[in-house]
């Protein structure tokens, strides 16, 4: 296995980490105005992700940095190609980050309500856009022989990508609801449970629809032939089992299975791309691959050593923070304002 493949795998791992962790952050943010019936409930809900959301977001920055360092042409083509979509995502990320810090620093209820809805918007927009982006990546984009994106913003809004967006939106929202069932108590816990059960069926249906649609719109699953391989099947079995575990009130298991759904869906998409990183719909020969888009072996080698040392350290201390804040949060908890 060469360094290019290792770095493709590492980028996939960073996205899995990001979607798994930030996925429930987005979900919690989306559900905040609906499950938080009063200010106290909203503070409880924010506190479930309060110590973590910022660290979770760094997974995206690291993934972005890793793409830049390991596959500069991928970074250049994708970021300049998804221009307006990324701008929208950045606006959402900015206002969301600010809202978490600002909302409780003033007692005025209008002030807090405004920031809470900004948290909703700032979580909902990226949750949707990630699915749109991934769907477009595997569907292919107009890219010319100089690795330059030649489409516009509305090329990205095709029906297939929109189904992908709805799927990621629903999956992250469900993920957030299940996360809340593990972190809250009493009335908030009950409404989180009910929400998770309600969200499961539409999430599963849209995910299935996306898989079927992928057969038609992309070469990703067609590449597998009749046997799609074990990875997408695990993802589908996992989302089915989430429904079962929610029904029998085993939320811990539901959360684990949700994690597996997200991880294996991400792997399915990235393994469908492999060895390409951006598919050119103009001419298959103009696609960006892990070889023609990559950095030199020297750079990949340096980055491998750095990643080998520091990724495990990050995993250890981030896991530790979840251990420190492992207790459920109730209305009676000492809340951070």
């Amino acid at each position, binding site marked *: 296995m060469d360094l290019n493949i290792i770095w493709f795998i590492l980028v996939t791992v960073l996205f899995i980490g990001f979607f798994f962790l930030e996925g429930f952050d987005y979900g919690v943010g989306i559900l905040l105005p609906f499950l938080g019936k009063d200010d106290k409930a909203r503070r409880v809900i924010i506190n479930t992700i309060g110590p973590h959301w910022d660290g979770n977001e760094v997974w995206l920055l690291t993934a972005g*940095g890793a793409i830049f360092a390991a596959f500069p042409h991928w970074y250049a083509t994708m970021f300049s190609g998804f221009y307006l979509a990324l701008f929208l995502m950045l606006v959402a990320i900015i206002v969301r980050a600010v809202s978490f810090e600002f909302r409780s620093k003033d007692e005025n209820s209008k002030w807090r309500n405004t920031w809470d809805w900004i948290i909703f918007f700032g979580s909902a927009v990226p949750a949707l856009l990630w699915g749109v982006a991934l769907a477009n990546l595997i569907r292919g984009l107009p890219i010319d022989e100089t690795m330059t994106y030649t489409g516009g913003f509305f090329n990205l809004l095709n029906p297939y990508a929109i189904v992908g967006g709805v799927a990621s939106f629903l999956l992250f929202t469900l993920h957030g609801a299940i996360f809340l069932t593990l972190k809250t108590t009493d009335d908030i816990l009950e409404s989180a449970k009910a929400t998770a059960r309600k969200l499961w069926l539409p999430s599963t249906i849209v995910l299935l629809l996306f898989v079927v649609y992928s057969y038609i719109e992309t070469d990703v699953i067609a590449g597998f032939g009749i046997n799609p391989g074990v990875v997408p099947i695990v993802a589908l079995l996992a989302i089915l089992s989430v429904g079962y575990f929610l029904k029998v009130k085993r939320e811990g298991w539901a959360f684990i299975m949700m994690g597996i759904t997200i991880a294996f869906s991400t792997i399915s998409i990235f393994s469908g791309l492999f060895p390409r990183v951006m598919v050119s719909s103009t001419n298959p020969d103009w696609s960006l691959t892990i070889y023609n888009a990559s950095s030199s072996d020297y750079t990949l080698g340096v980055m491998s050593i750095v990643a080998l040392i520091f990724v495990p350290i990050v995993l250890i201390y981030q896991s530790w923070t979840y251990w420190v804040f492992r207790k459920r949060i109730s209305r009676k908890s000492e809340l951070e304002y």
Partner: protein
Amino acid sequence: MDVLALARWQFAITTVYHFLFVPLTLGFTLALALMETQYVRTGDEKYKKMVLFWGKMFLVNFAIGVATGIVQEFQFGMNWSEYSRFVGDIFGVPLAIEALLAFFLESTFLGIWIFGWEKLSKKMHLAAIWLVAIGSNLSAIWILIANSFMQQPVGYHLVNGRAEMTDFFALLTSGHVWVQFPHVFFAGISTTAFFILTVSIYQLNKNKNQEVFKSSFKFAIVYGIIGTIFVAIIGHSQAQYMVKVQPMKMAAAEALWESENPASMSLFTIGDETKREDVFALKIPGALSFLAYNKFDGEVKGIKNLQAEYEVKYGPGNYVPPVAISYWTFRMMVGAGAAMFFVLLIGWWVAYKKNFDFSPIFYKILLFGVSLPFIANATGWIFTEMGRQPWTVFGLFRIEDSVSKATTAGEVLFTTIGYTVLYGILLIPTVYLWRKFAIKGVDAMNIHESNHSEN
């Protein structure tokens, strides 16, 4: 305007705005770590109150600093994709390492610190804020390693029209990094000192018996004097380094049209940029040679001579950066820095010799003085980036080759307006919260304390 001009405006606006907040993060995390160390060592509740109050002020800043920083990482790909292709092999590495080593550390332990007052022992909680301080300043090192490559490329070779890394350690040990980083580090300390000073004097003016703000004021005076002295000393070695590796930037900073030996330093010049000559100039003979070499003779190259030299080396073209902007931003930076030092000296005298019996004039000076570090920070960066023009990577890659090919002028205009409006709007709640806490003083922590029983 074309895509290039718009992308440059966007970079300038978003970077200057982002860098309003970054120095405060660098300096504040360290200040909080020092204050909390005092609290843990002495057990004095006064220090805990300081940590809580300034911590709140800092968090308002941190949120917006982090959020606007994400735009910085993304816009290299969005607006400068051709630059990213050319330099990604090298430039992407410090950016990725910055996220992996610094951002994770900073964000994760900040979460622990904010929410962990009751969950962790005092010492663990203290360790958390130290890790945040280390993380944020580490991030400054890595981003400046990236920027230093643009000012003085090292450890690379050119393959198929792009720069590839040949020596990672050459990047880390680049002389440019180790004059630039300390300059930024101490600028962060100085900026934070002024912020603390201004809020403290506002509180002390209302009620002179507040122990918390007297201690904060004294802390800020010492912090700021150390900061400004080191900014100046390192700034001097930076200038000497610049004469060696970017002589054109130095020549532009001084509006030095012709090489001189000994070289005189401009006190005040009105020049004609197109004719490349002085209209009116007041100069100190030999002073520029002294700045460059610590002795009163030695040649400093002029703009016209360097232009001729570069035409031979790089082919025809204009290699002169905007002289008026370089000249004035350089002077504003140095002037604001010097003014800060003198304000701090008066502050020292007020605190230590006059026991806080300050005059209304000094009070007013400080309320305006808080703008000085922000002026110095912004003009310093405008100078260092403008003085490098027309290059994005000095001597290797030009700005007009750097811009994205996939974007249209309309798109870049749209996002530039978008960021400007959004950033403008975000200043309103930021300033509102800062002002509110500054007025309320230690009372602002009441909500916090009702939720946290003292240990």
